[in-house]
């Protein structure tokens, strides 16, 4: 009951992408949403996190831990995002990137501990002062996930987070992500166009160019 979408409708320029789409994602569960490009899967994530591009029409309620976040600004929703690109901030060290995500008001000691733990989990214990630019693609992705989680999100949205990685890395990072989600016990929604990325429940969105855009779960 941790991430709940109720009757989501999404359309652009009169074209319906989603019609009365409802979904519940449990804690620790990852639900994957698949479909061809343009079917509205990324726009759904945009609506959920509050960054939907202008031009879309959307309605429906979003509940995170039983709190209605539908009309809250993005920064108040407590929804974490993981993108294709790792988007580590180039002007901060790896440790500072992680520290940026930590909540306010923690003691210096606890901050340090959390960061060390996160670096440990990412398998990069000695990288606190490293320049993000010196990291490999896989390392950057792991740090990026850790950064997202340090902000203590109540739900996680993943927008094709594996698509930029090569096959070998991809497999390892995938398991890393799903394990972490289970450990943290938060609900996650994953958008992808690759069946292999999925884990658990899969929802396929129809090609909406056929004008009858209805999701079937």
């Amino acid at each position, binding site marked *: 009951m941790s991430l709940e979408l109720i009757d989501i409708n999404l359309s652009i320029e009169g074209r319906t992408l989603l019609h009365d789409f409802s979904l519940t994602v449990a804690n620790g569960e990852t639900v994957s949403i698949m479909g061809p490009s343009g079917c509205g899967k990324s726009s759904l994530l945009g609506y959920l996190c509050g960054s939907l591009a202008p031009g879309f029409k959307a309605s429906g309620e979003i509940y995170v831990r039983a709190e209605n976040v539908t009309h809250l*600004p993005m*920064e108040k929703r407590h929804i974490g995002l993981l993108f294709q690109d790792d988007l580590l901030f180039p*002007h901060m060290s790896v440790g500072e990137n992680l520290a*940026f995500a930590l909540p306010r008001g923690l003691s210096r000691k606890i901050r340090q501990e959390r960061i060390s733990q996160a670096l440990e989990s990412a398998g990069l214990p000695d990288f606190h002062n490293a320049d993000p630019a010196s990291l490999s693609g896989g390392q950057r992705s792991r740090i990026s996930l850790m950064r997202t989680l340090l902000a203590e999100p109540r739900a996680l949205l993943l927008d094709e987070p594996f698509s930029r990685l090569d096959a070998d890395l991809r497999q390892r990072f995938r398991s890393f992500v799903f394990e972490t989600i289970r450990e943290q016990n938060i609900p996650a929604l994953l958008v992808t166009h690759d069946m292999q990325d999925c884990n658990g429940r899969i929802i396929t969105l129809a090609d909406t160019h056929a004008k009858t855009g209805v999701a079937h779960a």
Partner: protein
Amino acid sequence: MLPSSQTWARLLSTVFPFITLIGTIGVFLPAFGWFPALGFQSFSLEPWHTLLSTPALGTMVAKTLFTGIAATVIALLLALIFVVTCWNTRLWKATERTLAPLLAIPHSALAIGVLFLLSPSGFVSRLLSGPMEWNRPPDILTVNDPYGFSLILTLILKEAPYLVLVLIAAVRQSPVTRLLTVGRSLGYTPLQCWLKLVWLQLYPKIRLSIFIVLAFSLSVIDVSLIIGPALPPLLPVQILQWLQSPNIEMHLPAAAASVLLLGLVLFAAVLWMATEFVIKKAFKSWLTAGYRGNSKALMVNSGRSLWLFTLFTAVASLLFVVVWSFAWRWRYPDILPSVWSLKVWGRYFPRVIDPLFTTLSLATASTVFGLALSIFFLEALPQTRNIRKNLVTSSFYLPLLLPQMTFLLGIHTVLLTLRLDGLWITVMLSHLLFVFPYCYLNLAGFWRQYDQRYTQAGLLLSGSRVKTFIRVKLPILLPSLLTTLALGIAVSTALYLPTVMMGAGRLETLTTEAVALSSGGNRRVLALYAVMQQLLPVFFFATALLLPRWLFRHRKDMLR
């Protein structure tokens, strides 16, 4: 291009930085008493004794530093407020459209506008006269005030838009939307994202422009003459007055003072860098302390209003100049003229014609030279991104980063020795020193964007480099060439010190005349000159915008 053209380009590209350096070093000779052309042939510390015994030298130095640094800091803050609060709003787009014409207008014309706005009998005073029950202009020093507040305001009105222009270009190259999305998904308000994520990445990109603004604000002369403190004036103005004094011995302390000015600019630059360092250290923990911020609509709205007010004041002061040039009868408390007339234009326009032609001839000649040289460098200098190339291009900035007064005085010393001052060609070449870097830097951007495959296709078809260059590359880049031409004209039109110094007072341009008239009483004539100062660059920019539209009216892809 011929194989030797690269060598030529390498050689030529060092000429301007070399002249600037020669000028900067050359000024040390008269500063230490050696100026054979004026009959001083022995080194001594006498010029420094004279300089240091000048009454109020300390005040001059302190005020010069104060006005220059204050103007730069406030202009930068305003620019910061603009990008942080106006992004993705209509005001951003409106600003983009207003900036080019605003920046094309000479500093001195804007200073005259502010003079008309703020002077005791100016527009603001007229607005206040009702509630304050003033029948006569109040006896307050609202312009030329001893602390230089009106000077600071004028500099801000001109430099904040310049920094905003540079910032807008930097924003276009930055992934602002994505940074905001990441930051906000981590719980930060947009304002905090701007400060902690976007701004820190933008700042390094505009740093050079900040130093240009700093050097300019510390050493500006024309604006200071119009609206700056008078008794005592700021140091650059004092130097000019010594140079223009009939007593040629004053040349030597003037040279010493311009070495001092160079020291002030360097000091301010070092101070700036030290402050950057301290702020960076102090804010390091703030950056990652996790403070998410509260969204306060009030703060965002007041930021926007502040920027709108800045733009409005700049535009309004320019419009007042136009109004004054048509005002025949405009008594004190009246908000607008009671009698409008073309008489000012009819009566005084003949006086403007000579300076107008001098301005035009200097501007077109220096710009055409500047453009030709820039194109030559862009074509002939090896297009590699190595340290040497970077060094060459950065050295082009030198005339913008050093105080004009210092290196121009050094060059002048040489020219005076060779009896080459006061000639049109000398003044034109001195304009080139400033016009060229702007032309080059502006064109370089367009040259980089040009799709080389057009040239390759042209070469394959025509088999001639020259033909391909003239028939393919130049026409495709014509719109950019025209805007650069307009920019060069605007830069030259605005130049005051090079014209006065190298021209030995024999060449009168719109700008030198406007500055000279600004201390006199006839506002209408002054307005006329200032309007002409505005019209000239605006005319060229409008042409640069409209001509390609007409020429390529049947070539849709050229108009994008």
